[in-house]
């Protein structure tokens, strides 16, 4: 029995995101088959070991080569329901493709991500009903947050015959997959298409604009205790909270913006325009910093990443830094912002930075960088309040939900959790891998197991 998929709103067209070209455009049939035929079909392949979801990569690639695209998609999706978006957004350079045996043979590694995207997109376009859900078990699960972890978990739970209900406080589902991916990797509509497909796999409801709180005080709020009462199990896919702040003078006011917030607007807000913004300073050395700096540079804005450590200390991927630099992004290392500079009407005019050694300021070594806008990309806060509203769910020192890594189960035996709120912020593929562990444990629990 097939349920109507939840309604997912459209995004309006006039967004800056649409200006970006795909850096890895989808393969056509001939390109995909040619690339698939390069694969050696390794035994016990290193690429599988490098994939957090352990997709049987050589097998799905061989299936593309034989024209068995539907089978290729099954091979991918049974391991990773978000195979399409992972194909587009995974840092394959440091995962599967990074482990490809071709690397040390001075040959290009197989373009695994692009092949994966090809297989899933083509197979689903030809036949969306690749999987049939099992008969209803009568069990109901609430999922908090509609990011990759929850979407993947809901899809797998639905395929097992359980009823899933996702509660999302935003009006677009998909979490960072929808609102946080660099637009040259994946656009909002593509992410939403995938969400729509996953939610169509079985009995899944989606409640948008609803927040989960300790005590409900409005129709848009549902209490944690109500979820625990009404559902057989709860899955927390909370993700991360708002961008962290620098806590330096001049930071408050217009012209200083959090990185994930800005990326979200760039992708989904048709009103965002960078009028009068010629120079931007991005503070941070991680992948979010590189993403937003790269995105701004592609819009023709003079963009500089400022990082307090040395360039080898950046947590950003080398391949992303290199790619951003090619597109004109500048990187300034060993500089720590000490103040945002504003003119007499409060408009941002620059950032005062101090030179650092070993990430420590060198007294007196200050300089001013001109900027019309400052983007802060120094991490995100945690969704601790939501997590804490579930009795028994514990957080670690850094505000991450504590789970048993083998099961994804929290301190509350009815509550499981996975994704960024557990791991502190990793890739989509990690969220999917963790969600799978949690679903396996939840399913055992729901069907009479522990």
């Amino acid at each position: 029995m097939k349920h109507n998929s939840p309604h997912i709103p459209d995004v309006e067209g006039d967004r800056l995101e649409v200006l970006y070209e795909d850096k890895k455009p989808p393969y056509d049939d001939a390109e995909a088959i040619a690339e698939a035929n390069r694969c050696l079909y390794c035994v016990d392949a290193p690429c599988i070991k490098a994939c957090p979801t352990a997709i049987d990569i050589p097998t799905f690639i061989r299936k593309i080569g034989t024209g068995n695209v539907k089978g290729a998609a099954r091979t991918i999706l049974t391991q990773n329901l978000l195979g399409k978006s992972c194909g587009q957004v995974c840092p394959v350079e440091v995962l599967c493709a990074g482990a490809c045996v071709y690397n040390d043979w001075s040959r290009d590694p197989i373009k695994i991500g692009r092949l994966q995207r090809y297989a899933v997109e083509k197979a689903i376009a030809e036949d969306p009903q690749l999987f049939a859900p099992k008969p209803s078990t009568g069990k109901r699960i609430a999922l908090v947050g509609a990011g990759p972890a929850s979407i993947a978990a809901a899809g797998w739970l639905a395929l097992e015959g359980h009823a899933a209900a996702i509660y999302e406080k935003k009006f677009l589902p998909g979490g960072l997959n929808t609102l946080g991916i660099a637009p040259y990797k994946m656009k909002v509509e593509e992410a939403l298409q995938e969400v729509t497909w996953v939610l169509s796999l079985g009995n899944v409801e989606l409640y948008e604009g609803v927040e989960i709180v300790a005590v409900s005080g409005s129709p848009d709020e549902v209490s944690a205790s109500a979820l625990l009462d009404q559902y057989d199990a709860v899955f927390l896919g909370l993700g991360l909270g708002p961008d962290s702040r620098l806590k330096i003078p001049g930071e408050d006011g217009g012209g200083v913006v959090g990185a994930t917030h800005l990326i979200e607007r760039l992708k989904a807000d048709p009103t965002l325009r960078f009028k009068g913004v010629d120079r931007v300073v991005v503070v941070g050395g991680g992948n979010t910093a590189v993403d937003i700096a790269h995105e701004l540079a592609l819009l023709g804005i003079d963009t500089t990443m400022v990082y307090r450590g040395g360039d080898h200390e950046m947590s950003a991927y080398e391949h992303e830094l290199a790619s951003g630099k090619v597109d004109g992004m500048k990187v300034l290392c060993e500089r720590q912002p000490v103040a945002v500079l504003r003119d007499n009407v409060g408009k941002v005019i620059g950032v005062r930075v101090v030179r650092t050694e070993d990430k420590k300021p060198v007294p007196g070594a200050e300089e001013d960088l001109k900027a019309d806008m400052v983007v802060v990309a120094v991490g995100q806060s945690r969704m601790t309040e939501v997590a804490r509203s579930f009795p028994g769910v514990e957080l670690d020192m850094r505000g991450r939900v504590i789970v048993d890594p083998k099961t994804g189960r929290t301190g509350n035996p009815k509550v499981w959790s996975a994704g960024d709120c557990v791991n502190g912020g990793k890739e989509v593929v990690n969220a999917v891998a963790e969600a799978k562990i949690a679903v396996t444990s939840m399913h055992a629990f729901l069907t009479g197991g522990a």
Partner: protein
Amino acid sequence: MADLSINFAGIKSPNPFWLASAPPTNTGDQVMRAFDAGWGGAVWKTLGNPIVNVSSRFGGIDYGNTRMMGLNNIELITDRPLEVNLREIREVKRRYPNHAVITSLMVETKEEWKEIIQRAEEAGSDGHELNFGCPHGMCERGMGSAVSSEPKVLREIARWAVEFATKPVIVKLSPNVTDIVEPGEAVLESGAHGISLINTIKSIMAIDLDRMVPLPRVGDASTNGGYCGPAVKPVALHMVGELTRHPAIAKLPISGIGGISNWRDAAEFIALGCTSVQVCTAVMHYGYRIVEDMIEGLNDFLDSKGMKSILDLRGRAAPQYKNWGELDLGYRVVADISVDKCIGCQLCYTACMDGAHQCIHLPGRTEEEARKAGHTHIPKLIPDRAVVAKGGAAVHGGGAPHAPGSRVPFVDEEECIGCNLCQLVCPVSGCITMKEVPSGKPHESWNDRVNRGADYVPGGLHVTEMERAKRST
């Protein structure tokens, strides 16, 4: 610089590279462009009474990303008027007197053979190639490969040709026979001056699974065609070898055809006893220009071996083509996997496990793990070496690094039977080598064992044992 010129039964050619009778020799313009590119000779697209061709005509088979590993065609002989072909032959010979122009011929009656040979010679043909090999269309009319498979008919027609011709007669044989020696001997008896082989192999290229029609498709049907290209080379080499080791047939010059694409292929055919080689598919794939590499490569090869001419190379490998019963049962090779070159794909491991003798092991396994994986023999000698394949350690990023020693397989030499399979599947050239090791057995063939009465291997049928016992008493 070695001398590449040849004399094939009196037909002289600046080099052994001839274009086979096929689309590349369809017109005078083509043949002249081919001679300009360096080809030494051309066998003209078969002359006869004009026919009507179908559309489409060719089918290809790919292997991985390689196009046209094999090609087949359902094209017939020339569809151009005889007069036009003859006029162009005359023109080509006038402009290129030192190149070989051989006319491929296919007609039915004795009178037709007489007339066509005469007219070809009047046009300046250096020799004739009797097309007794075409396996489609013409054979249904009693010509082409139908002639190759009837030695009596072949001998008869070839005799007519020898009788009517003043120029050398070459008979082109079909591979679509049980034993190539039969038509070979018929050629010998006919008095013809040379043999060329192979013509194409009867084939159906593929099936269009949507239309349920074989390929190449002509409307809503197809027919069998002639298979050629790199894939047929082993078949061609074998048939050439059967003739070049035949003491009487070997006296005739042989023109080798079948999958020859480069100088190395050509050298192999010549080493097996051919005087000239003919090329078609490689030219259809890449153009006449390939001959430049063929000439250069063959020249350098002869120089590197200290050979002065084609004659020095011709037939050098033929004596080493023997029957199975003559092979040395005491010879032994074992596989050796290079730790430096291995990229850790483990294709050799799986090939040996499932397709050979389970003598390639993965390092770092306990005996129990090895037995569970399907090994029945645990090697005494487990190499003590660092065995992380170059490509096996995820040094390029955050991929899970492998446990040291987890990727480079090693060979249980005691169990290795030297079958070559691992070397054949290894994608890295030179990574797996087969090294000669003493087997502890005498140098002896099966025939030797038969001769000394030691051709009995225990473990067979009781019936056989009883029979042997009776015979020995």
